[in-house]
């Protein structure tokens, strides 16, 4: 049976997903072309960003189809090794890495090419997490399994934090969703959400008002559950932890975060106006996107894009080009493509027979989701500026390839869903 499948490499491959993938790559190429387009020099140039991106896309496709040629079992078997290698790379990059834009995230490969290990750590982690859950089917009812899975997630997260690349590190929190799917209590997500809400509230509301509010809410729950001792105790605990958390955030904010990170957070929360400083990116990005209006200015017609008003426009802020030149219509199509891809990946994951494949599928979908949400969110100013790429669209070999690998591993697993791993 295995031989039979090997002979028919692309049997059962989900071509629709590949189609969406190619479409997104093309969208990326077109908009990178527009972002670096120079009116005075229209000749095609392979040393320019769009030229390189074309090479990356072609190489990515080759890479993707090579993955389809591999044995499906390989990924499950070698997942600890892949994970180990990426962890080692993450340690190496901290020692010998090149510092680009304040983050020590790159390993130089020579010839102008650089590798960003944090990109590859994503699928390394996804694979190991899938393997762990697939093998032990823990359901996350006990502390041990949560701790192990949490550790798999937190090791790369911590190493990336040390670079320090908060944006990429944050992406690893997306592994909470596959864990949730596999049985992790929804409370974890709620606690997580609560932490975010409290974090924001901490800045917007003075602490002398915030604490009475929390105390009264906590008091209400304590009163409600006064007959159930255990619940009452939990409510007291949660209230106490929440208040402790508030102070912790304040301290951490002042002591741990760098000034530019603090500024970004304050800008997003509307506590600061800084149109020429850190806020410049966001304001210019919003202006570019907003100027696209309903149908956009048209390909190569975006003045904000052409004249370089948005920094990092071919990488992190590529969405501003889409917004300006293709308008709301173009944005809707792109977001629609992503949503379609994400929903389909979940559906594909759910049809897997092996837990490993399903967990991995969820990991892929959630990682992509995090990137899309945060990237577009920061381009339109509803999420702090944390530099993470827009999957398949942003310029850059490392990110494109890592997303390609991430996706095609799943496609391979999916095409092999009838087999056993």
């Amino acid at each position, binding site marked *: 049976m295995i031989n039979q499948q090997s002979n028919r490499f692309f049997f059962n491959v989900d071509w629709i997903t590949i189609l969406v993938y190619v479409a997104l790559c093309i969208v990326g190429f077109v908009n990178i072309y527009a972002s670096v387009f120079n*009116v005075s020099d229209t000749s095609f140039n392979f040393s320019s960003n769009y030229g390189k991106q074309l090479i990356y896309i072609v190489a990515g496709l080759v890479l993707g189809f090579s993955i389809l040629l591999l044995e499906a079992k390989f990924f499950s078997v070698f997942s600890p090794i892949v994970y180990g290698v990426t962890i080692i790379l993450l340690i190496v990059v901290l020692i010998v890495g090149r510092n680009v834009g304040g983050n020590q995230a790159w390993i130089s490969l020579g010839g102008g090419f650089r590798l960003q290990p944090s990109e590859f750590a994503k699928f390394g982690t996804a694979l190991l997490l899938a393997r762990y859950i697939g093998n032990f089917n823990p359901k996350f009812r006990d502390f041990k399994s949560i701790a192990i899975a949490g550790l798999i997630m937190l090791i790369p997260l911590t190493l990336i934090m040390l670079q320090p690349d908060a944006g990429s590190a944050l992406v690893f929190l997306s592994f909470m*969703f596959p864990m*949730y*799917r*596999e*049985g992790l209590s929804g409370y974890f997500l709620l606690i997580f959400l609560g932490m975010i809400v409290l974090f924001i509230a901490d800045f917007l509301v003075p602490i002398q008002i915030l604490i009475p509010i929390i105390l009264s809410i906590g008091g209400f729950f304590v009163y409600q559950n006064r007959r159930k001792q255990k619940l009452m105790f939990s409510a007291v605990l949660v209230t106490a932890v929440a208040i402790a958390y508030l102070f912790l955030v304040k301290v951490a904010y002042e002591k741990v975060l760098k000034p530019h990170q603090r500024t970004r957070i304050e800008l997003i929360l509307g506590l600061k106006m800084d149109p*020429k400083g850190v806020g410049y990116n966001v304001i*210019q990005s*919003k*202006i*570019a*996107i*907003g*100027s*696209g*209006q*309903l149908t956009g200015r048209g390909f190569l017609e975006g*003045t*904000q894009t*052409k*004249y*370089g*008003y948005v920094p990092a426009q071919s990488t992190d802020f590529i969405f501003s080009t889409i*917004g*300006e030149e293709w*308008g*709301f219509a173009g*944005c*809707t199509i792109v*977001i*629609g493509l*992503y*949503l379609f891809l*994400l*929903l389909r990946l*979940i559906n594909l994951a*759910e049809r897997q027979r092996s837990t490993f494949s399903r967990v991995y599928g*969820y990991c892929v*979908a*959630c990682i992509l*989701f995090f990137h899309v*949400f945060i990237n*577009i*969110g920061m381009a*339109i100013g*509803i999420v702090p500026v944390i530099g993470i790429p827009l999957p398949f669209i942003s310029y850059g070999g490392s990110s494109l390839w890592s997303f390609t690998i991430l996706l095609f591993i799943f496609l391979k697993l999916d095409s092999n869903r009838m087999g056993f791993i």
Partner: protein
Amino acid sequence: MDNLFNRKYIVQGLFILISLILLGTLFYIQVFSDKYFLSAKFNVLRRIYTFPARGVILDRNEKILVQNEPVYDLMVIPNEVKPFDTIALCDIIGIDTVRFHKNFRKAVNQSRFQPNILEKQLSVNIYQTLSEQLSRFPGFFVQSRTIRQYPDSIAGHFVGYIKEVTKKDIERSEGYYRSGDYKGKSGVELAYEKELRGERGVVNMMYDAKNVPKGSYAEGKFDTAAVSGEQLISSLDIRIQKMGEELMKNKIGSIVAIEPATGEILAFVSSPGYDPNLMVGRQQGNNYMELLKNPNRVFNIRPIMGYYSPGSAFKPLDALIGLQEGVIDPNTTFFCPHYYKAGNLKVKCEHYDGDIALRLGLARSCNTYACYVFQKLITQRKYKNQRIAYDAWQKKVKLWGLGDTLGVDLPGERTGRLYDAAWYSEKYKQRKWGYTNVISLAIGQGEMDATPLQMANIMAAIANRGYYIKPHLVKSIGKNHVISKEYVKKNYVGVDTRHFNPVIDGMQDAVNAPWGTAIESRIDGIVMCGKTGTVQNPRGKNHSVFIGFAPRDNPKIAIAVIVENAGYGGSYAAPIASYLTEKYLKDSITSKARLAQVEWMKNQVILPLPPKPKIKAKVISGDSTAKDSTEKKVLPRPNNIRQTISTK
């Protein structure tokens, strides 16, 4: 499957929810709000104005009177300024940091996002240094414009000056002027502002994030090119204008010369004058304040603002009106006993000729003759009373352009003074009044004032034998040589052509006959006709006046010269007129003796205030011919009249 399967929907629901949030936000900033769209425009587009060169002003022979010179304004867009070396920039443009910060604050107050002028009118040299280093100063750029330049430094009062517009100018212009624009403030610059200023051009330039221009918006569909101002050909003749200004140096007064056939003003000298080049550039304000300090009121445009009694220069009009009315003929004689007496009023006459007729009366400038003619005019039988007769006379005089503005194309012209009968009735409080009360008008004194322009215009009318064309300073406008119709229309003065010759005879004698009052101003080969005047000045020494035209037949130039506080008309005004006439008609002054006189005249200082006239210097200079021309006493016969009106 287990109930964990349902968690799929929660995850997918989250994906959908977040996508909808993203799309909702996008909808708001892209479709609902146009704030960002406008900001994008604002980011990229900047209206760059190109300033048209003001129209060039030429003299009648198309020599340049006023031209343009490039200067550069340092502009700043405060919002784009990044920290820079203030001291280095100040050094380059040559100002101190205090001034720099003051200007910068002003610019910030005006607009943070629009270009504002930081420092005006930098020279070409500064511009060159600056443009090399401009990249060191983000947010700053240079805008070129032109300022006026006057190659001969002459005719300041005629050309006027331009100045930055005031807030009021901007309001009144209904959107034409913008802060920092320049506009004519006086003279021709003001009178012909619309023609001279041209049209400002605008380029909707697109800029990239580094402030590098990237070409014009929509391929220049909304751009307009600057249109240079129209070229003006003025009526001035640089040669005599310049000579006139030199002759009037250190004197107070005016020269107006008119081409009778066209009404074109050939020379327009107001003294004291100023170098128009002082009124441009960064020192304009300081220079202006300095000039204002001059007690002799530099900015008074005397040819059209100065009030002078015409004095004896009015006498030809007496005769002409008398001839036209038929109260005299050329041979009518009056007996001059050295004075004119009517009732208890006596008008002195400074010569004694006994019976005197028209020709000699004018040549000798006889007060008695003039008064008799006036008496006859006012006592004509055809009028019911003398008041009515006076009104009729006054109307005839007005036809000559007295008592009202002539309508010259220069702002600030004044009317002069000439009153109607009602005014006198008011003055004499219903008492009967008659010619004796106003007899001084016969000799151009009393309640009569004329501007030098009006006096020259009277001469033009006489030269034309009966009409004048409104004097004007601009011969033609633009390439098509447009000229306003009012400046070609003949204005008749109500005296028939045949009456002019007898009067002109007298005026010819005044300059050419040995007994004339201006005999030493005779020009070889040119028959100049004229009339001297010595005008009483209640505040000091008499004003020297001469009006005339030349040549007698087919006159080419009519001229009025007034030199304040210079005494007899024959001593300063007449020679100056003769030099200019000769220069204009012959292109140069041939005789060496007269050339020397010209030089002597240029060096004369006649100012009412210290420094006092350097009479000694004149003697020491020892130029005999020059001395002759001014020392009245050496003449064989009393040739100047001192008019005094004394009421006993």
